[in-house]
């Protein structure tokens, strides 16, 4: 440590020497800008280095000199010999102080007034309205914010309040609102009237004014009444900023002191407690103890009205206390045992490390760093990660130049390597998310342990770090209990097992039945069924719980989009803003990709075809910057994702025409379809509105592909649009891979499934009942006409031979009820439906697969797609 001091003094003496030389040179040959600059740098260095030690008066003086030099070098202030002389004086003073530092004989108390005086004089050159007189500038120096947040009033403050009268602190507490109070001593200059000042009115208009004291001496008859003899004191509740702002023009004529309401409360505790005891009203006392605020108000108010207050001291105090109690917001501060003022003011001194000697450069006592660093991200790691993410997403991000260092830095913190920005961004978000959860947990504990911690910290400082040392291990311990960091693969494994369990349990009812039939007896069968029901319930809960663990906020996916949008927009010379909402809506981690794909396509479409160029937009009376809203909202077990743009909308007529040209609709339809139906055509198979495949949209993905993706994921998509106004897409997607109940059936000796919620009924009808209307087979059930679809054909199997009977699965769709002709019915089971992957993903008629108990794979049909193929 003394090595640091030595280096500091050594270096700074050089700076002083160099500065003095330059000043002398200036005095003889004028203020050349390089010279001024050099002196500025020297003082800047001295100021910066001195800040590492606790020698504030020296730092302040250097700062004042630096500021003056800054003004000179930027030509705001003209150099003069007076300035030169004063600077030399300052340099000399600093040199003297260095001498003292070298031998250890420095006396900061003696330094302070010298520093204040010289600094004021230096600053006076910058701004002549700054008083160069110690007394007044003293106030500005003394009132630096440290005191404002003290937990207790200082002696001085208590005295000031007392000067406002007996019980002034209570009165102020009673009337004050907000977080801070002020005391102002305003002593206008005698000649202030000639400057157009009007002090009493200024004081009367103070923000949050609660009390005013105006002192005017006796005036002799021949006194000059145009001189100001008034002095004013004011007490009020407002922030330091508000006070300073109000009194801005009067700097130098007033001094102020700010203290917190908390400190005020602490100061009043004794009195309040005493008075309450003295008043001796059970209801009131009890109400205070129970912290029943309403009751406190009520009792205090009642007592205030009913008690007779004589003129004794006690009475006025009691009255003041009751006034306070009748309108106070919170009585918890009354709990505190009245503390030793000294111990509390130790809190203030944590800002000033005077006890520990000169240097702040404390290498020892580093245990703080270790103890409070849990195994997860440290505060600074988190801040750095956040910053890297910001850099990645910024407009000015240049991949080639910045990616290596960002990836390296993040890699070191997270212990991984990254191939591209997306992987990097997702990894950072994941890490930060987990930390947020942990932080919240920490905050809660911090609040619990903070009382303990402050109590520890009040031992007057020998070591400045007791707080963290003591609180940290406690925190770390509780943390371990609340949160666990888990490897994702473990969760996936858990999920798989749960999945198998779900399916396995399904065999139980069947086994129960078998047991009954093979002579095990009804009793056994019943027991098995009973147990099955318990196992069923437990499995469902288990599955639900595990799925919850896997839920992840959509922001993980969404956060890449703003950059995506920016890049695409830029390539097309369009201006587009992406606004996202509901990013913390949760989604199953594994399904989130199924969400991302359609969204990206829709975004691309909006940017490519939806939002117009800036010129077009302006011509259409729209703001130049196009807007895309991406909103995620949870709804029961699903999530609604809305993509809205204010672009040119989709023209139903154009769609109809194109659809007709492509043979998707007939001529009659061209005439009969209304606008809404026309718009829905974009989802039709084989439909694409862009003549050329835009290279931005990749494979020129049309809406039909998007619709398929959404269906595959088990969701639905809707679209609304208005020409010239914009388009809105709404996706409804299931949030988790939930358990579905499916009905199994057989076609061509293969097992298939259909979601149970679509099934209306199952019927077996004689072949004769099936009728033909035009080209379609239909069935009449209870006077309803049900169009039929032969699944054998729809699924691509050979037609069956003639049959006597047909098994028909009646399903319900938004378009009405339809019948599926199948071979055989089977029972309904619970399965966890997985979306199709890989090659199968291209088959639109299946919405997913499920694993059966015996290892077979069940293909679950997508009713609507199948019907579309059929009819």
């Amino acid at each position, binding site marked *: 440590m003394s090595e640091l001091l030595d280096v500091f003094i050594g*270096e700074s003496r050089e700076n002083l020497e160099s500065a003095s030389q330059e000043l002398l040179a200036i005095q003889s040959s004028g203020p050349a800008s390089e010279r001024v600059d050099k002196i500025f740098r020297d003082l800047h260095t001295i100021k910066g280095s001195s800040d590492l030690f606790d020698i504030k008066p020296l730092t302040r003086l250097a700062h004042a000199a630096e500021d003056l030099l800054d003004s000179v070098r930027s030509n705001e202030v003209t150099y003069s010999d007076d300035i030169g002389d004063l600077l030399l004086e300052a340099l000399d003073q600093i040199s003297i102080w260095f001498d003292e530092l070298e031998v250890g004989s420095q006396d900061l108390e003696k330094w302070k007034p010298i520093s204040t005086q010289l600094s004021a004089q230096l600053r006076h050159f910058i701004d002549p309205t700054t008083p160069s007189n110690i007394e007044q500038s003293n106030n500005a120096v003394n009132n630096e914010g440290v005191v404002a947040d003290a937990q207790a009033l200082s002696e001085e403050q208590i005295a000031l309040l007392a000067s406002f009268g007996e019980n002034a602190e209570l009165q102020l507490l009673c009337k004050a609102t907000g977080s801070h109070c002020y005391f102002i001593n305003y002593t206008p200059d005698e000649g202030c009237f000639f400057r157009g000042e009007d002090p009493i009115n200024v004081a009367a208009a103070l923000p949050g004014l609660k009390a005013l004291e105006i002192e005017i001496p006796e005036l002799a008859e021949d006194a000059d009444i145009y001189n100001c003899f008034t002095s004013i004191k004011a007490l009020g509740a407002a922030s330091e900023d508000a006070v300073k702002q109000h009194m801005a023009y009067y700097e130098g004529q007033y001094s102020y002191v700010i203290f917190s309401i908390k400190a005020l409360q602490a100061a009043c505790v004794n009195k309040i407690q005493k008075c309450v005891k003295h008043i001796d009203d059970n209801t009131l006392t009890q109400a205070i103890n129970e912290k029943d605020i309403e009751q406190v108000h009520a009792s205090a108010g009642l007592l205030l009205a009913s008690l007779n207050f004589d003129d004794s001291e006690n009475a006025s105090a009691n009255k003041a206390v009751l006034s306070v109690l009748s309108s106070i917001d919170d009585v918890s501060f009354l709990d505190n045992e009245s503390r030793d003022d000294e111990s509390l003011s130790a809190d203030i001194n944590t800002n000033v490390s005077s006890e520990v000697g000169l240097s*702040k450069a404390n290498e020892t006592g580093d245990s703080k760093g270790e103890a409070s660093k849990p195994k997860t991200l440290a505060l600074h*790691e988190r801040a750095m990660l956040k910053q890297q993410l910001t850099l990645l997403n910024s407009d000015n991000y240049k991949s080639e130049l*910045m990616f290596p260092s960002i990836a390296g830095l993040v890699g070191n913190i997270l212990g991984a390597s990254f191939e591209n920005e997306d992987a990097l961004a997702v990894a950072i978000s994941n890490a930060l998310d987990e930390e947020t959860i942990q932080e919240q947990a920490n905050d809660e504990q911090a609040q619990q342990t903070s009382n303990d911690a402050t109590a520890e910290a009040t031992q007057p400082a020998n070591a400045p770090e007791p707080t963290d040392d003591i609180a940290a291990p406690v925190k770390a311990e509780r943390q371990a209990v609340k949160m666990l960091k888990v490897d994702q693969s473990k969760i996936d494994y858990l999920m798989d097992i749960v999945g198998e369990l779900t399916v396995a349990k399904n065999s139980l009812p069947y086994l129960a039945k078998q047991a009954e039939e093979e002579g095990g007896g009804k009793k056994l069968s019943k027991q098995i069924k009973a147990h099955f029901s318990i196992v069923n319930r437990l499995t469902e809960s288990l599955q639900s719980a595990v799925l919850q663990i896997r839920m992840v906020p959509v922001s993980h996916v969404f956060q890449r989009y703003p950059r995506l949008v920016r890049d695409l927009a830029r390539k097309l010379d369009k201006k587009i803003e992406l606004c996202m909402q509901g990013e913390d809506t949760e989604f199953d981690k594994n399904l989130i990709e199924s969400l991302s794909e359609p969204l990206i396509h829709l975004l691309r479409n909006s940017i490519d075809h939806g939002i117009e160029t800036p010129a077009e937009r302006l011509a259409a009376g729209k703001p130049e910057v196009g807007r895309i809203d991406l909103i995620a909202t949870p709804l029961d077990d699903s999530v609604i994702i809305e993509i809205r743009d204010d672009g040119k909308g989709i023209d139903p007529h154009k769609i109809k025409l194109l659809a007709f040209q492509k043979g998707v609709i007939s001529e009659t339809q061209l005439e009969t379809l209304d606008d809404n139906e026309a718009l829905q055509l974009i989802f039709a198979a084989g439909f694409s509105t862009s003549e050329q495949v835009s290279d931005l949209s990749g494979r020129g993905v049309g809406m039909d592909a998007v619709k398929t993706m959404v269906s595959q994921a088990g969701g639905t998509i809707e679209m609304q649009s208005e020409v010239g106004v914009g388009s809105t897409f709404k996706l409804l997607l299931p949030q988790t891979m939930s358990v579905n109940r499916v009905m199994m059936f057989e076609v061509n000796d293969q097992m298939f499934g259909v979601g149970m919620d679509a099934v209306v009924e199952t019927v077996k009808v004689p072949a004769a009942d099936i009728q033909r209307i035009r080209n379609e087979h239909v069935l009449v059930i209870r006077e309803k006409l049900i169009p039929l679809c032969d699944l054998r054909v729809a699924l691509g199997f050979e037609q069956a031979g003639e049959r006597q009977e047909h098994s028909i699965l009646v399903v319900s769709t938004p378009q009405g009820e339809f019948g599926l002709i199948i071979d055989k019915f089977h029972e309904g089971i619970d399965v966890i439906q997985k979306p199709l992957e890989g090659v199968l993903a291209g088959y639109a008629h299946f919405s997913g697969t499920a694993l059966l108990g015996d290892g077979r794979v069940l293909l679950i049909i997508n009713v609507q797609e199948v019907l579309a193929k059929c009819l």
Partner: protein
Amino acid sequence: MKTVMIVDDASTVRLFHKMLVSSPVRIIEEAENGVEALEKAIGTSVDLFLVDVNMPKMDGYRLCKEIRLNEALRAVPIIMISTESANQDAERAYQCGANYYMTKPVDADTLKSVVSAVIGGEANE
């Protein structure tokens, strides 16, 4: 062994930061300004730059840009340490290629933690 290069024109500050981040498993290099920093860095392997803003010959902002333009040095993280605390100053640092920005005087523990986070390895016990 990881190398940290401390770039600042004030020897006191260089020493202060060096005292904070040195350890048996780290090499600390120093430079007084951007020019010296580049000279020393090219040809050695630097794992982290701690860069002051106000320096003669080449200031911190320019040094950042040069580091990023240099293929060999590009991947090295840069932490800028400056007396200025305004948002624009941090912004400017980031635009010039800094990864992180801290204001002087740095909190001792913060600097230690930050450096440890970036290059690993413990600081002084």
